[in-house]
Every structure is written in C-alpha cells, then in structure tokens.
C-alpha cells in the first residue's frame, strides 16, 4: 500500500478566549492518497476550513494546533517554523480560496504574480518562468494567454480570476492542493466550468486535492472519497458513492435528505431540528445526539470514534457491536 500523501492524526485546534478554551476541531484523523480527491463537507462552523488552514499553516492566531500530527509524505509539518512552512506552501501544498478577488494582489499583473510564485519555488530563469506561466494560463483556459499575461486582476471576470488562482496554485507543481470553497462565489454555469477544470488538471498533474465545501453537489462531481464534519469532528468518511447513496451516520442521512433535488416532488424536505451546537456548548457524548432521531442512552454519555460500517466509517454507536440500549 502506497504511503499516504497527507496523514492527519488526531488533530486538535484550540482557541484560547477569555471565557475559556474553545475546541474548534477535535480529534480529526484522515488520510489523502497521492492523486486522490478528498471532499470535506460540512455546514458552517463544522471546522472544515480551520482544518485546511492548519494543514497549510495559515491558522490565524490565537487559534493553534493543540494536539495531533500532520504528516506530508511521512514528515511532520505541523511544528515547522515560519520559514520552513513558507517553503512548503506553494511548492508542495497549494491553496485555492473562495474569493478570487482577495487571493490576487490588485496592484500586480497576473503574470508578475505567477512568475514570482514560480521563481520562488523552482530554479527557473525569468524567461523560462514566463514561458511556464503562459503554459499554465493556457492550461486553465485563459484565452490569448500570451497577451493577457500582462493584465491586472480587475481586468478579468470572476470565473477567469478563479482560473488564474488555480494556475497560481499549480505553478510550483505541488502534490496537494487545499481548495476551500473554490466555487461558492461563482455563478452556476461558471461553477461547472471550474469543477471540470479542476478535475482535469488534477488527473493530468497527479495532484491530490482536499476539497472543502458545504455544497454536496460539487463533491458529487469531483471527489473520490468524502469526509463529513460536524461540530469539529468527522462523523462519517468513506468512498463517494457509499456516503452519498447509502449514508450511515444519522447526520449524513439527514443532510442528504434536506438537499432539494430535481427529482421527484416532495412536500417537505427532511428537516433536522435544531442547529449545530456553538463551540461553547458542545454536548457531552456524541455531539449530534440532541438532534438525532435514533438516539439511545450510550450516545448521551460516550463519545463515539469512527467505527467501521461497511465500506465507510461512521462515528455512531449504531454501528458498534454490542447492545443498543
């Protein structure tokens, strides 16, 4: 079995506040194999963006990694210094964020930003880097790349800008890309273009992707495996078709049922009553138990870890051997 490209073990992210320590991400473990697309899906506050930020070393203080390990190609990266992390960022892990306007510096041409990124990580001359930049722009589908390389971000539309951001992320040939809501700010028709592009590029370059989003539809189109997060923990993880067609965890079941679809005509959508608990008030035992329609006594006291349930794993006592009282 090939070694995992990214190995996150028991990650714990804490925020010290004056009201006490908030645990935003609690005991999260997963792996990403080389070239694989892992979709991390969850609602706002579930901790998925924080996990991505921690992996790439961009956690905003006072948030910090309080426990656990993050390994890239078997080497720990969560305890590196700023400089060491800077070298990894871009060269081995690339990032795509939600808002292309914020990811591109408005004062510099996209060519300048591309070339700067390329030359920071790769030993190329100015002209070689420029040629590579034009290649990248063509690859992401920017028409007339040689001419537009000198243009500024504001001269591109939203969809084009996100393509430039993807080009930037791929510039130094990273093996892993963390994409945090890459299509959320885009129109529906552009979303589908970007999704197709991302998929194709990752296949072509053999890049693994950690795709963070709240949009199940995007996951369904791109991911190989899916991790569902709730209140800072992973509640289900498994192959795409399993999680979507046969979800195990009651939260995932509720989530899939609450998505309106183009098929059929339901009077009511499946509704999970209540809302995700605030970080200051996470229930004891299983964090989902107050909203679960299959709760029993054990759920209220003991917190479940990920338990094998067919092809996927779910953090739910329903799948543990033993009685269900």
């Amino acid at each position, binding site marked *: 079995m090939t070694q995992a490209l990214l190995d996150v073990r028991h990650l714990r992210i804490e925020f010290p506040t004056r009201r006490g320590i908030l645990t935003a991400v609690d005991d999260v473990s997963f792996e990403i194999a080389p070239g694989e697309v892992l979709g991390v899906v969850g*609602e*706002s506050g579930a901790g998925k963006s924080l996990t991505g930020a921690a992996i790439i070393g961009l956690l905003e203080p006072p948030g910090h990694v309080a426990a656990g390990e993050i390994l890239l190609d078997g080497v720990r990266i969560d305890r590196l210094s700023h400089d060491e992390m800077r070298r990894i960022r871009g060269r081995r892990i690339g990032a795509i964020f939600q808002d292309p306007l914020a990811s591109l510096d408005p004062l510099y041409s996209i060519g300048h930003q591309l070339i700067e990124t390329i030359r920071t990580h790769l030993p190329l001359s100015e002209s070689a880097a420029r040629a590579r930049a034009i290649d990248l722009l063509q690859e992401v589908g920017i028409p007339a790349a040689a001419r537009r390389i000198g243009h500024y971000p504001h001269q591109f*539309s939203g*969809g*084009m800008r996100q393509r430039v951001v993807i080009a930037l992320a791929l510039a130094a040939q990273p093996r892993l890309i963390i994409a945090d809501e890459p299509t959320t700010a885009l*129109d*529906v*028709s*552009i*979303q*589908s*273009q970007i*999704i*197709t592009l991302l998929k194709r590029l990752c296949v072509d370059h053999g890049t693994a992707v950690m795709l963070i989003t*709240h*949009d*199940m*539809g*995007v996951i*369904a*189109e791109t991911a190989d495996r899916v991790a569902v997060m709730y209140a800072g923990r992973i509640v289900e993880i498994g192959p*795409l*078709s399993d999680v*979507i*067609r046969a979800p195990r965890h009651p939260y995932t079941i*509720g*989530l899939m*049922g*609450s*998505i*309106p*679809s*183009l*098929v*059929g005509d*339901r*009077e*009511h*959508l*499946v*509704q*999970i*009553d209540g*809302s*995700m608990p605030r970080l200051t008030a996470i229930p004891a035992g299983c964090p989902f138990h107050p909203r679960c329609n299959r709760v029993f006594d054990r759920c209220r006291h003991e917190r479940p870890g990920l338990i094998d349930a067919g092809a996927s794993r779910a953090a739910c006592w329903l799948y543990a051997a033993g009685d269900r009282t």
Partner: protein
Amino acid sequence: MTPGRDTLLQVAHARKTFDVSPPWLTRALGRQRRLLLHAVDDVSFDINRGETLGLVGESGCGKSTVARLIVGLYRLSSGAITYAGMDVGTLAYGRGNRTLRRKLQMIFQDPYASLNPRWRVVDIVAEPILAQRLLRGRRAIAARVDELLMQVGLAAADGRKYPHQFSGGQRQRISIARALASEAEFLVCDEPTSALDVSVQAQVLNLMRDLQRALGLTYLFISHNLAVVHHVADRVGVMYLGRIVELADKATLFATPQHPYTRMLLDAIPDIAMSGKARTPVAGEVPNPLAPPPGCAFHPRCPYANERCRSEVPLLKRAPAGGVVACHGVEERRIDIASHPASVSNGI
C-alpha cells in the same frame, strides 16, 4: 396577457434603467458617452393568488431588480406593475397606498444585514404593527409579537434577545415574522436561503411552505439555485440579462426545457444523483450588462444562433411544449425540444 380572476400581481413591460455614467466633468473631459445599465428590459408576467412563482437566473440577470421594483424600493423607468388592481408605482419613495405597503413585503437574502443589530427582536417584529397602526396598546402588540414568533418556530422569550444571539436560519425566521406582522399576503423572497446551510435551508423552506398553506400566502421566490426553485415553485421564469427568456409551469420547464439558456443551466447543475451523465462543457460567461450583445443577448453562447438571432431581439411567444419562450430557434422549430438529456438522466 389578460388577467384571470385570480391574478394578484401583474407586471407589464417593466423596465428599469440605471444611469451609471461617470460624473459629467469626467465625461466631458474624456469625451465619454453616458453609460446606461438596462437592469430590467421589458419584463412581463402574472402571479396568481396562492401560487409560488420562481424566478431564476445568474448574477446580473435582473431578478433582484425585479423584486425591488415590485415592492417599491426602486421606481420603474417605464411599464406598469399592479397589485390587486392598485398601481405599485406610487410606493416608491413615498408613503404610497397604505394597503399596498401592508400586503406587499420582502424577505431579504442576507440574514445578518436584514435585522437592525441594535434593536431587540420584539421591537423589530413590532415595527410594522406600529408603523401601520394595526394594533393599539402595548399589551396587545406584545401578545401579537409572541404569537408571530411562535408561528415561525421561535419562542416567545426570544423577543427579549438581540439579533446577534441568533443563527442565520433563526434570523430569517425573524424576518418572516416581521413580514407577517405587517399582515402581508404577498412575499417577495430574494434568495432567502442562499446564505444558509443546507439543513437550515430545509427548515426555512418547510416553514415557508407551511405558512403558505396556513395563511394563503403568495410568493415570488427568487434564486439562482434551480434545485431549490424546483422544490418550492409552481411556475418558473428564467431570466438572462434583464429579460425573461422562458416562463413555464415547473413540470414543463424541468422536463422539457426549451430555451438554450435554460437547457444550459439545467446541464450545469452538479449531479448528486450521479448517473454519470456526460457533462457538455458550458461555453462562455455572462456578458457585461453595460454592453449587451445585439439581438438576442444569449447568442454568443448559443449553439443554435443564426443571423436573425444576432440582429433581432426575440419576444416571449407561446412555445410548442408549453409555457412561453423568447427564442427564434424555438419559434422556427430549429431546436429539438424532445426531452433534454439532463431531465432524462435525472429520472423525470
């Protein structure tokens, strides 16, 4: 379109143009022309009492402008909008007709900006009651606010709290309670669930459906999310660059989309059902609304465009499969409108 007995809202050839020209000095010095944005360009439709009309389109299509024209936040440049026979035009920037103000209300997209952060919830919900003088006396008003809060699934005690103590979904419920406080019967909902998580969206959509049944409300539901519109609407209109390109009842639109843009939109929806349908790459982007293409605005992206499409703006005409469509190709029967592959694979 002659109004039926049940027609509540009538929009007739509505037009809204914004002047976004640079200041006159800049124009004079740079010899630039005036810049006009035709946000809404000849839009007409009716809504019957008790039904939900969904309006879909991408950014810049004008659906939000239509919403604001209907409730009177913008003034029409030309055309007419009538509600139960009363002209809505009087609403903009003025006191307008009291009844209209009460009955036409809006639910906004951003749950964080639609409630005044410095006001308590009870004051927010009571505001329309006080403004319209619907009830007298503190106790009567307080009781009514409690009743409304419970009707939207909150607790009466929530009235004492401030908006920041609530989640996005709960804030939308408060907005709905506020609209109901005004005894509204027609709600214009401008992307009411777009900013909400999926499970919260389900709660709010279910609530809106229940309220519609219980109170006989009529909705204009605006969204960019076709799946949501499929769930809530009875009829659906598709907008592109300020015009309606297709308007049909839900079953027809989703089973046999006729306008090429509608077909493209349906094609672009991420496929949860994963029937492995081949995704035809969508071409191009929405053009700059300040410089729309001549003729049919969609022609640069349309695989069926011909000379007529490039020069003549198509009008909404009755379409063979049902509803109305603004497309020369459909009118000339050039497009094969047999079931769209998207709808077949979606199991319809």
